[in-house]
């Protein structure tokens, strides 16, 4: 417990340092001004959520083929953690949009698909809460999770495939795209810190799911007696 608390404090300090770098080391972007600083948290959170949903997708596939309980635990843990990151994206996005676009929200392809992504993983968690039988719950949610993941590439490529209000990609966006070196360092450090946070949250959530399974086993044992 003490070890994980120390890890959590260390990670929050690291995130605070990366935020400091984003504010003071990275230069102010010329056209948008200081509001562009939201980029570091917004984009890093989006990519980290994709990573979490990717882990969920892998765990769901693994469960379907092997029926290992641990794959189910990993699947639900990654879905919930990914949802936390996508909520950050959906909150920081409109705060950034308002001063730049003059509106909080618009139903363009990128924003709509990101909103749907959040709804899909909320549905994944709701589906689990509605099925009591553990094997059935694990299988149905794994199948739904595989379907839900199909939205992740759609979100990623939406700004390349369709005309959107959302800006074109800055990273890996082809000729003319890219970040100023100090911006790139700040962005990569923020993404690294958030990936560390993902690992911390995922491992804590996985332990919680394992404990929940033990409680279910003990309850069944108590009922039999």
């Amino acid at each position, binding site marked *: 417990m003490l070890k994980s608390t120390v890890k959590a404090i260390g990670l929050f300090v690291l995130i605070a340092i990366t935020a400091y770098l984003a504010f003071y080391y990275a230069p102010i972007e010329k056209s948008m001004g200081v*509001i562009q600083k939201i980029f570091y948290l917004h984009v890093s959170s989006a990519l980290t959520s994709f990573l979490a949903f990717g882990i969920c997708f892998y765990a769901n596939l693994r469960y379907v083929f092997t029926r290992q309980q641990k794959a189910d635990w990993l699947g639900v843990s990654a879905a919930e953690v990914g949802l936390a990151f996508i909520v*950050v994206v959906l909150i920081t996005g409109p705060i950034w949009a308002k001063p730049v676009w003059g509106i909080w929200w618009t139903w363009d392809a990128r924003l709509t698909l990101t909103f749907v992504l959040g709804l899909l993983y909320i549905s994944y968690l709701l589906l689990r809460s509605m099925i009591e039988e553990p094997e059935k719950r694990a299988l149905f949610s794994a199948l739904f999770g595989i379907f839900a993941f199909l939205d992740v590439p759609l979100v990623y490529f939406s700004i390349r495939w369709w005309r959107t209000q959302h800006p074109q990609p800055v990273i890996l966006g082809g000729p003319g795209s890219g970040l100023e070196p100090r911006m790139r360092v700040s962005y990569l450090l923020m993404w690294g810190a958030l990936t560390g946070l993902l690992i911390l949250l995922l491992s804590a959530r996985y332990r919680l799911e394992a404990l929940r399974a033990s409680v279910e086993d003990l309850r069944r044992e108590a009922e039999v007696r």
Partner: protein
Amino acid sequence: MKNLDSVLAAYLAGWAIFFVYYISISQRMSTLREEVERLKALLTKGK
């Protein structure tokens, strides 16, 4: 600096979500630990 309050609001909201989520995991964990102890005691008593 123009829009600095929006930047601070975005970062504070982000950190608050992560922090509250971490606390919620810890709280759910301690509730389940108590439940495990209770069930174990119940099963030992029943033997």
